[in-house]
């Protein structure tokens, strides 16, 4: 009997996790291919298209995700978890597939508006998916192992990011650069439909969550989950404590560890893109099992100590870790031992003012080996404008290739950042599920989760850059490269204080007994 139950539980986890992973995959490929999407659908010389592009970037994550949490959370609490997260999967997969088919702006001028709509649907679907999957698994799992079983759902966001990068890199490797830019970028979007169909078939075979099915049979489902979740003080105060005491901090730690770190390595440290992405990929793979470790550990020692420890570690370690990454890659402090000119290419490009004329662009690549084993690659581009002898100001792009030892040190540091993520994120699904009663659980847990992640987390790059700009003064015109970290540090510290003082173990946990 126990074996059958476990088998059923693992099939529930497999089906739920696969669908959620696909949703994250769909959400991330849009982000990862943002540059090419922008070129194809949002031409910068068209102000309306540029306006829609900004709206697509900001609105999808910040407004629509919490809104999706409300819309689908309500549905999930009224008609059931299974059908609701099946719907979110269809919406997400269908819209992703549609992007792959959409003609570009050059042939269809309505494309920017459609892309914006599709992105909004994606955000809406993502807002509804996570709460459903977490609730569904938690309601199948035994109360004393909820942390362990729901932690599988927690791995999907990281794995979705990993799979999206893997598919894109594979497409880029298999196809020529021209083919990828021309049509190959559509493949990751089109592939989504295959994954979604597989997931739908699996999910259709699943049954409604036993706790919700029991509630429905007894006629105890909520007729107005929104009113009960946010209109009653007893529940609203728990929503607020979940948001300000847990998910707000978790969101910034998650985004800093997985996305800000990537931007920092590429933009502030100027590390070679392939090397930086590989370091992040390896660190993500090594750290992912810790979602399950901390989920399981939370069943034994409680959710709160692990999540709060993760927040505290992030607050304490962010500046030293990012500082070490910056120092290691700081070109100004490196001693160059040899310089070698690799190649000089020259090509003709049409003149911007007069297309009948051509400019000459000369590109010189120089490699500089440093005493610590790292290699600086400098690409100097000079443009000789048609009809003029003198060239304009040369543009120099620098990238750094780390030595093997330094590469592993960066992997170790990114691993530490993701490790903090696993601490705060691993037990959080079980914590949120246990905080709210079954009949309004989907609605109540989805909103704080998506505000924490979508708003507080999603704003890490924007506010980080803003603070960095503030740090530029007349005495230090280049600014403090670590200044952007004050936002995640501040939010995580605030969340830690609120969490330590106000988060308590939910009373509902002990009352629930699952009948499978």
């Amino acid at each position: 009997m126990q074996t059958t139950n476990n088998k059923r539980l693992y099939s529930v986890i497999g089906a739920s996790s696969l669908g959620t992973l696909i949703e994250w995959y769909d959400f991330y490929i849009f982000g990862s291919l943002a540059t090419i999407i922008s070129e194809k659908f949002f031409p910068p010389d068209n102000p309306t298209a540029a306006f829609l592009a900004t709206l697509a970037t900001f609105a999808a994550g910040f407004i629509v995700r919490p809104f999706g949490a409300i819309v689908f959370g309500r549905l999930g609490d009224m008609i059931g978890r299974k059908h609701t997260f099946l719907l979110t999967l269809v919406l997400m997969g269908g819209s992703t597939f549609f992007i792959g088919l959409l003609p570009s702006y050059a042939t269809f001028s309505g494309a920017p508006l459609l892309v914006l709509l599709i992105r909004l649907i994606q955000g809406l679907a993502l807002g509804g998916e996570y709460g459903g999957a977490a609730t569904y698994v938690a309601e199948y799992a035994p109360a004393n192992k909820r942390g362990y079983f729901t932690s599988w759902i927690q791995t999907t966001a990281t794995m979705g990011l990993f799979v999206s990068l893997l598919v894109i890199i594979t497409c880029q490797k298999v196809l020529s650069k021209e083919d990828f830019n021309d049509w190959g970028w559509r493949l990751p979007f089109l592939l989504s439909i295959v994954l979604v169909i597989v997931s739908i078939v699996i999910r259709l075979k699943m049954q409604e969550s036993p706790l919700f099915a029991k509630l429905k049979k007894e006629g105890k489902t909520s007729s107005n989950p929104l009113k009960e979740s946010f209109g009653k003080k007893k529940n609203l105060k728990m929503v607020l404590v979940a948001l300000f005491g847990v998910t707000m901090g978790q969101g910034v730690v998650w985004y800093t560890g997985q996305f800000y770190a990537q931007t920092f390595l590429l933009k502030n440290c100027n590390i070679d893109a392939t090397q930086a992405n590989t370091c992040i990929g390896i660190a993500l793979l090594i750290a992912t099992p810790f979602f399950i470790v901390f989920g399981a550990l939370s069943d034994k020692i409680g959710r709160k100590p692990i999540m709060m420890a993760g927040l505290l570690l992030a607050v304490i370690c962010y500046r030293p870790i990012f500082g070490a990454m910056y120092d290691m890659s700081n070109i100004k402090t490196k001693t160059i031992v040899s310089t070698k000119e690799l190649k000089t290419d020259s090509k003709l490009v049409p003149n911007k003012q007069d297309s009948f004329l051509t400019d000459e662009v000369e590109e010189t690549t120089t490699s500089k080996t440093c005493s610590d084993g790292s290699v600086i690659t400098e690409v100097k581009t000079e443009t000789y404008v048609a009809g003029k002898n003198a060239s304009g100001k040369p543009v120099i792009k620098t990238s750094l290739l780390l030595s093997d030892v330094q590469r592993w040190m960066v992997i170790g540091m990114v691993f530490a950042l993701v490790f903090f993520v696993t601490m705060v994120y691993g037990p959080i699904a079980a914590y949120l599920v246990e905080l709210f009663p079954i009949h309004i659980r989907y609605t109540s847990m989805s909103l704080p989760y998506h505000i924490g992640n979508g708003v507080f987390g999603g704003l890490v790059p924007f506010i980080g850059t803003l603070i960095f700009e503030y740090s530029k003064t007349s005495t230090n015109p280049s600014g403090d490269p670590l200044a952007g970290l004050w936002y995640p540090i501040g939010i995580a510290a605030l969340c830690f204080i609120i969490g330590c003082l106000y988060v308590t173990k939910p009373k509902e946990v002990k009352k629930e007994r699952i009948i499978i």
Partner: protein
Amino acid sequence: MNAIRRILGIVWLLLGPAAIAFLGYEAYSRINAHPVSDVYLPWIIIVSIFTPIAIGLSLFGFYALTGEYDK
């Protein structure tokens, strides 16, 4: 511990309006400096999404102050 929870409630209660005022001021000065869609659109979205969150923080502070989170 309950006393600390209640006293800090005042801080959360005041932090809400302070956050709205700060964001409003920032948005105003940024948009005035560069009134283009790349600047004003993100700021409008940020201010409109953070305002209800800041109200929520004040409400949280009020609940803390009135002892709703006491053990």
